[in-house]
């Protein structure tokens, strides 16, 4: 039996995996990484960039808010006045939990996955609101490019610290680039503003010991796959079934692998049942095959919103492995 890591490599290199890679099993995500991100259920708070967040009680996640003058950037042409780079924590004390976790991982079995979120695109709209961010790409492209370069410099500085501290051999990086129906921006605009930044980020990680780049975008983004390959993504996690996944595998398998297909909104919801999960997992495994594809929920962490869903998906993927391998 192959190790999780070997089985992953066989899958993404078009070899002979002996089972499906089961969701996030190959990623040991170092969530103790002091990124500054906070998850404060039921609260309203400002993060280290000054972005205001709300996580309403009883709801599934947190939201940046921009109404009533709360947006950090009030005028993109004066973004330097509003945006201050947060201090990157470098103390051994702050990193100790992350280092301990990374040291405890058996790297023959799993990847030590450094975690970073949110990425450049999300940061632009977290700072000023989606509409303002998207319109600024047309109306104030030079200022937006400056802001993107600034955010890039922060990411690269953080990457250097993370590399020094935990020596990740994988990076798991979040940046949502689309809705479930389309990418937020055109491929041309993406290539102009975001591809160059990501080539630098993922190029930096790969030049410093990272062997595997896993990028999360739970969305449609089929039109951005050539750019994903160009920037060095090995696995696109979050690929929704609104993308034609079998077609993507056929066209791009070998250049990139696809991890997802099990739409979290369809299986991880209040009225979920094991039968619903089983049906979606089976369809996903049968439709997408054994190479260049990892069956996985589309949401961006190995957790569920409704207790039991994640484990049930794991169990059903194991069942499909027994059936199809």
């Amino acid at each position, binding site marked *: 039996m192959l190790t999780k890591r070997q089985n992953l490599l066989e899958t993404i290199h078009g070899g002979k995996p002996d089972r499906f890679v089961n969701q996030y099993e190959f990623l040991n995500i170092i969530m103790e990484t002091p990124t500054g991100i906070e998850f404060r259920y039921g609260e309203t708070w400002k993060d280290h960039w000054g972005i205001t967040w709300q996580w309403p009680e009883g*709801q*599934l996640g947190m939201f940046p*808010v921009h109404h009533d003058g709360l947006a950090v950037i009030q005028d993109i042409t004066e973004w330097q006045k509003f945006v201050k780079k947060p201090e990157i924590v470098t103390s051994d004390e702050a990193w100790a939990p992350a280092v301990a976790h990374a040291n405890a991982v058996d790297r023959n079995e799993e990847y030590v996955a450094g975690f970073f979120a949110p990425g450049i695109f999300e940061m632009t709209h977290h700072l000023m609101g989606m509409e303002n961010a998207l319109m600024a790409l*047309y109306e104030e492209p030079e200022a937006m490019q400056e802001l993107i370069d600034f955010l890039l410099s922060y990411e690269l500085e953080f990457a250097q610290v993370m590399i020094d501290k935990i020596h990740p051999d994988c990076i798991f990086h979040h940046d949502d680039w689309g809705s479930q129906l*389309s990418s*937020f*921006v*055109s491929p041309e605009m993406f290539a102009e503003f975001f591809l160059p930044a990501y080539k630098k980020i993922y190029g930096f990680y790969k030049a410093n010991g990272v062997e595997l780049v896993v990028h999360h975008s739970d969305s449609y983004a089929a039109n951005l796959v050539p750019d994903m390959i160009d920037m060095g993504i090995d696995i696109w996690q979050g690929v929704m079934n609104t993308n034609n996944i079998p077609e993507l595998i056929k066209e791009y398998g070998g250049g990139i692998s696809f991890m997802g297909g099990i739409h979290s909104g369809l299986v991880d919801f209040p009225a979920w049942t094991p039968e619903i999960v089983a049906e979606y997992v089976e369809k996903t495994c049968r439709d997408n095959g054994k190479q260049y594809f990892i069956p996985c929920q589309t949401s961006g962490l190995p957790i569920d919103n409704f207790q039991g869903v994640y484990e049930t998906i794991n169990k059903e993927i194991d069942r499909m492995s027994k059936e199809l391998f």
Partner: protein
Amino acid sequence: MSKIEEVKAKVEAGKSKLVPGLVQEALDAGIAPAEILQAMVDSMSVVGDKFSAGEIFVPEMLIAAKAMSKGVEVLKPLMAGDSSSSLGTCVIGTVAGDLHDIGKNLVSMMIESTGFEMVDLGVDVSADAFVEAVKNNANVKLVACSGLLTTTMPAMKEAVQTIKAAFPDLKVIVGGAPVTPEYAAEIGADGYAPDAGSASVKAKALVTV
């Protein structure tokens, strides 16, 4: 290219700095304000269709909507009191417990571009707040409810049913990632649209039948 065609082209291309001047030139050339407004509405209809077809993306739709609103600013003083080109008022909001506003804002812009006056209640809007807004605003013809979370679908159902109980003849349209046409029908909504472009088409169809 005629002045009116130029206005249409620049709205579609999202040239918000050029459109007000072109609208003024069209007025100076003797074209009626209502005709210019209709030309811009037609442009936004093309924009909506292109968005629905995946030919353009959110930024292109946003800048086109902004260009149109700049043009409308020029026309507004000349059309005060002329309600013939208005489709009425549309109350819009994201349902209780849900703070997503991007989709709702896009839909609001596109519905406005077809000729509705918009009353945007924002996010986390209770069923009662929708009803109050209908009561407190003139000529409300449509309510649009948005929701992105599976967990707020019950709030959407409550909103639709509360609105329909208070105003049985008022049209209600719903949308958002987890919403399907079947679910929209099940909870008693009059219409459903999968994206902002088709939402504007559906909104107009609902109030002009």
